[in-house]
């Protein structure tokens, strides 16, 4: 098995995310389709790791397990010092709510709410007062360059602006871990670059761990490490070429 070998033993002890020998299969009647077959992975605080690979390689399944949305069939999963395998659904939801921020490919903003109100949602779920939540949303909107769009509804925002709002929503609860699923896939090249610049900048500034699932080679330069998945395994780990400038014409794609 080729595992994520970048970590030494001490790093693994203090990792934000530590996954060892996890297996996952989907069952359909009597048919069982293995999706992850012994994945090892560790991500430290402040690090931005990309998961890359072809469709069906298990990237989204792995991200779902890291986000406590899905359970692994076997193996050890420790997210932010919590053994996720032993947590019940209620505690998993609490972990997602309190310590993990999600950025989705299709933004998944709530259309009845304004940009600011969408950013407030994770805080509302944490029972933060509306006033405090609103102040936090305004700070984040400023950070993602949308201070003037606080009262705009998603229908009146461009795709790039929506993804920036989604990024602000992911950061609203000050999470320790950001999970992004194809964050640039629905964006054009320029917007993709801008969103990744923001994601990287905000996670680095605040020392958060980030795991990004992507097909998009043109944003690889934003990663600290790129883990390549194939057939449910990490087949190699690479580092982006520091000489390679971010692509000017990066396009979203999903295979």
């Amino acid at each position, binding site marked *: 098995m080729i595992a994520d070998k970048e970590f030494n033993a001490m790093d693994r002890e203090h990792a934000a995310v530590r996954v060892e020998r996890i297996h996952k299969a989907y069952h359909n009647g009597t048919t069982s389709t293995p999706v992850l077959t012994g994945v090892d992975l560790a991500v430290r605080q402040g690090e931005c790791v990309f998961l890359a690979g072809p469709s069906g390689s298990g990237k989204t399944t792995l991200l779902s397990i890291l*986000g406590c949305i*899905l359970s692994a069939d076997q193996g050890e999963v420790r997210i932010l010092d919590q053994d996720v395998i032993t947590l019940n659904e209620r505690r998993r*939801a*609490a972990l997602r709510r309190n310590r993990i921020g*999600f950025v989705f490919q299709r933004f*998944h903003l709530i259309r*009845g709410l304004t940009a600011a109100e969408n950013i407030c*949602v994770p805080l509302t*779920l944490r029972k933060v007062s*509306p006033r405090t939540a609103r102040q936090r949303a305004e700070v984040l909107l400023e950070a993602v360059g949308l201070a003037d769009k606080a009262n705009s509804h998603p229908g009146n925002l461009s795709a790039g602006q929506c993804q920036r709002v989604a990024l602000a929503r992911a950061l609203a609860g000050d999470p320790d871990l950001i999970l992004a699923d194809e964050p640039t896939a629905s964006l054009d090249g320029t917007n993709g670059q801008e969103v990744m610049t923001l994601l990287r900048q905000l996670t680095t500034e605040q020392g958060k761990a980030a795991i990004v699932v992507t097909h998009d080679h043109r944003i690889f330069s934003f990663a600290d490490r790129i883990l390549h998945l194939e057939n449910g395994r990490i087949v190699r780990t690479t580092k982006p070429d520091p000489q390679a400038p971010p692509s000017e014409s990066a396009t979203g794609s999903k295979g």
Partner: protein
Amino acid sequence: MWSLALKTLIADRGKLLTALVGVVFSIVLVNIQGGLFLGLIGKAGLLVDHGQADIWVGHRKMHNIDFPRDIPRRWVYRVREVPGVRRAESYMIGFADMTLPSGGFENVAVIGVDRSSLLGNAWNLTKGSPSSILQNDGIIVDECEGEKLEYLEMGELREIGNRRARVVGMSHGIMGFLVTPYIFTTYERAALYLRKSPSLCSYFLVQLQPGADAERVCAAIRQRVPELDAYPRDQYSWISVSFWMTRTGLGISFGAATLLGLLVGMVMVAETLYAMVLDRLGEFGTLKAIGATETQVYSILLVQALIMATVGSIIGLMTVAGIQHFFSTPRAPIMVPWWLSLSSCVLVLVICLIAALLPYLRIRKLDPMMVLQS
């Protein structure tokens, strides 16, 4: 959570409107159907309710104000002797034909009241006075019965039971459950119109002495005159109402129609809530993915159901008030007591909360991973 629920609800105005129509429909239907029923059935006890008597005494097993059996008038003296009775007077009800200017006849219910006390006389007079019936051939008719009686005027002469009758007073809204118009006159004249012996009457109307207990006095009357039955006013009114409800199946038919309306309203609300949730599965999936608990998700649905029930009830009750104001007539009164409005609102609220369960069951099965797979 209130704000989140409200804003997502308002975002889909079309569906919100459909759900509100369902709630308003249920509220209006329950109140108008119920109001019409209460108005109609309440007419069965109209004479009892307005008769100014505390106790109604009639033949044993009396069951309806409009269909009495004759009792000897002289028994009134035995009733007057019962402790607690301040006054007891004879009262006569019967049916006779009134001549019409067109040459036809109309069956009328003739009511004869004691000429000294006028107990049980017409009320709500628009023309003349209660004592007008003391005039020669004097009768009081209701102006709302104009169509049936071919528009009687004050002073106009007619014949009832081949005897002359002259209109000396007009009331407004004294319309009974039966189709026959009520005609008020003196006891003696009523006996002539009805061709009955004045020694037989229909009821004794009893007024109590201050502080007397109606139930006890009724029991004492039954004991004193075993051939008679005696009931306090409200009880006899209810007996008269029950007569029509149970013997005609009116209650069941109105109740079934109301229930059907409620059911349609509930289906509309449940279907709309469900459709709204289906449209927004992605949003609920997102909420679950970012850590919303089952309780939080259900509370959003509950709050939305509560908002729909409250807003729908307010609009519904306003509509009911409008319909009542413009369409309630003495012929078809719409009586909407506060308890009917309140219970319809509570019922609709319960229906909305139950209706919220259906989409909840769908959301409960929702895998938050869907937001990562889109």
